[in-house]
């Protein structure tokens, strides 16, 4: 089947097998290799891209489903982008395999919620697995990219019911 997909602002077109996944279309047909495939159960999120601005796991979408739509991958951002710049500054990547998906998920998350807390970031990135960083610096990077002070955002988890930042004071405190 023929598809016309705008990728990173450029028109692309190809005759694809109907079962071709968007991830394979981007990697093999368009030749953009940043988007990675880390699992076969839509669990890891390494293949996350934006389709018309919404974050999507590109291993879960057929190329034909995004016909006439617009796809954005990490290659479109550049190192000056607030998210990629923050990932570098905060050491939010090690081996780099989850990074393209993680970065695109973060772009979407920041777009959806301009007032992110640490908890928001952790829950918002739940669909993206990283095996290297323990997420600590990814969370910091996303908070920085969202214009937050990561140390303050972490401490904001604390309130009068907590005995230390980040954990509750038990049911008894209610």
């Amino acid at each position, binding site marked *: 089947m023929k598809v016309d997909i705008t990728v990173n602002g450029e028109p692309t077109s190809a005759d694809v097998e109907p079962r071709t996944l968007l991830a394979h279309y981007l990697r093999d047909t368009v030749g953009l290799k940043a988007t990675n495939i880390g699992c076969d159960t839509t669990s890891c999120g390494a293949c996350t891209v934006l389709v018309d601005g919404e974050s999507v796991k590109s291993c879960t979408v057929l190329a034909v489903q995004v016909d006439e739509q617009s796809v954005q991958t990490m290659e479109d951002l550049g190192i000056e982008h607030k998210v990629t710049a923050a990932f570098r500054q905060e050491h939010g990547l090690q081996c780099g395999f989850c990074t393209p998906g993680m970065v695109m998920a973060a772009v979407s998350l920041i777009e959806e919620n301009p007032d992110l807390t640490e908890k928001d970031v952790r829950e918002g990135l739940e669909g993206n697995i990283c095996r290297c*960083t323990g997420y600590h610096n990814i969370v910091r990077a996303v908070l920085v990219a969202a214009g937050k002070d990561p140390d303050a955002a972490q401490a904001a988890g604390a309130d009068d019911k907590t005995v230390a930042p980040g954990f509750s004071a038990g049911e008894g405190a209610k």
Partner: protein
Amino acid sequence: MSILGTRVVRTEDPVFLTRGATYTDDLTDERLTGALHLTLVRSPIAHATITSIDVDAAKDAPGVVAVFTGADCDLAPMLGFPAAHKAMLRPFLAVDRVRYVGEAVAAVLTEEAYQGEDAAELVDVDYEPLDVVVDMKEALKDEVLLFPEAGTNLVSGMHLNKEGRPEDFFADCEVVVSKEIVNQRVAAAPLETRAATAFWGEDGRCTLFLSTQNAQAARDEVAGWMGIEPSQLHVILPDVGGGFGAKIGADPEFALVGWLSKKVGRPVRWNESRSENMTGMVQGRGQVQTITIGGDRDGTVKAYSLEVVADAGAYPRLGVALPMFTRMMAPGTYDIPKVWSTASVVATNTTSTAAYRGAGRPEATQAIERAMDLFADAIDMDPAELRKRNVVRPEKFPFTTKGGAEYDTGEYAKAIDLALKAADYDGLRAEQKRRREAGDPLQLGIGVSSYVEITGGGAFVENATVQVHEDGTVTVLTGTSPHGQGHATAWAMLASEQLGIDVDKITVKHGDTDLIPKGAGTMGSRSLQTGGIAVHHAAIDLVELAKQRAADVLEANVEDLVVADGSVQVKGTGAAVSLAELAGREELKAFHEWDAKKPTFPFGAHVALVEVDVESGKATVERIWAVDDAGPILNPLIFDGQRHGGIAQGIAQAMLEEVMWDEEGQPLTGTFADYGIPSAAELPSFDLVTMETPTTINTLGYKGIGEAGTIGSCPAVHNAVIDAVSHLGVEHIDMPLTPMRVWAAISEAAK
């Protein structure tokens, strides 16, 4: 000002964050044009004889170029670990028997990758099922044999303590506690699965692009399996998407890819799927341990015994060796007068085991740290206090342990105190007491671990080359092999320190066996204390060479020369010649081979705080305070990143992860949908405390940090969850500490 010890952002990152890293499956090398895709047909049965294989239908499928079975493969079956039983041979494609689910049975080569999946389904294999043994202790009974010709499932007796434990071993102890605990099998699960791509040149040499942690060892291993000279094989590592020990050396599939490429005369690519990886890639841990600890009520630990049964999986690999580290590190940070250990390694109808972050040492730490908590509980002493009473005193270093290790440097009690202080340990205990007295359904648990581990054990030698070019740039060649650890930045810092040339002008190359014929790769947290030190010395050698040459140019004495800002300068005068100019006159390059001769022993202490809902059994890790002392810190950004990742993997083993099979040997955790890798939502941020005690075995005092976090965090979290419910009568729960297990333990204790 020295660049060493400063926070330098990674030079790797601009490419990784724009074009993306280039992994093996991303290669667009023109020599790979027309490459075929390999799809492996893998056994769905854990133990069976193969009665027939029909490949005719597969051969006729669209896009299929060739199909091979074990009968077609003339690669000699290999022994995956030298000390393993010689009859435990592994064919590259199964011939008449399969021994685990996931074993390769047939190879399908197709023009397009998706055609391979279709064709593989058409390969018709008849299996005659055999009895299956999954449980290690069952396997030791030798009732079901994986290799009847071996006559036993015991893979190696190399770790057996033939002297036996003396009858009176615990005779002088007032209190003795014993427990059987499980250190469960886990999957390394690097985000990039295994991959290999091969082509043969007109010169008759094979080029193999691999995802591995050490190119040179992979070259030698694969060449041996292929029956060719190592010089006939050129191994190149593109970027590698994580390894965690599971990508040490080579996998049999790598040789198969090279062999198939030769056979069909075309390049061949192989990139496994995640479900293939979850049974095909080597896995970590997998020990049943019997721990027995004895001592007096005043808190003096006098004797410790550790009996290990370790799972090799179906075919022996590096996992056979790892109980050596478990036994060596058995006493941990403690000065225990009597320590006894033994280990058996046994074959089961499961995936092979090998290294996973820590590789034998976390198993030792888990055992002794659970033992210390059990003993503290038995004598009603605070577990932190018990640890501080028994750790090796600073004045005793270097300290030769009863495990046979020589600990270089350490201040174990200080590390514990730092962690306790950071956590406000007394405050946490007070809050715990309040909740216990209130009968709060959300109980707090506080877990302490004190650990020491061994890094750079095994391969002590590493080499580096530093070359300055006439354009002022620098190339560093290293025999280490990063896959996320940031060597391009760290090694550039070490060279920059000596040369005074900015890190952005320094390129670090690795993982190409023609360019760098020798090297031991990156594993066992060895890189900095071996490869990094080699770079340091190579840069110093280059400085000396440059001074010799500059002395002629500048008509000065060598003693009057210094190297700074990329040039050789005459002290006190303005006279100088740049390293670039010297390089223009004559090649300016230095090679240094550094022999560390010994390993180092990083150490630390972690305190974990968990909250357990005693009504549902759900435990949540709330905080973790980590003291990880690996000597001076080269780059705190990378150092802390290693700790974060390590801590997360330790928490993951304690709380979530377990590779499981049913009684028939069918994998129950064969995909990422079934296996419990934590997401950001299941982990807290980590509280890191700095402590730096240099080693004496290398010039810069560096120890390794890659695995420390895992070794420290896992027992701290494990102890914390049990501590949260210990007042309800729970003594022990095996990992992973899922709500079901915690709830069951609480219910059992209530009976």
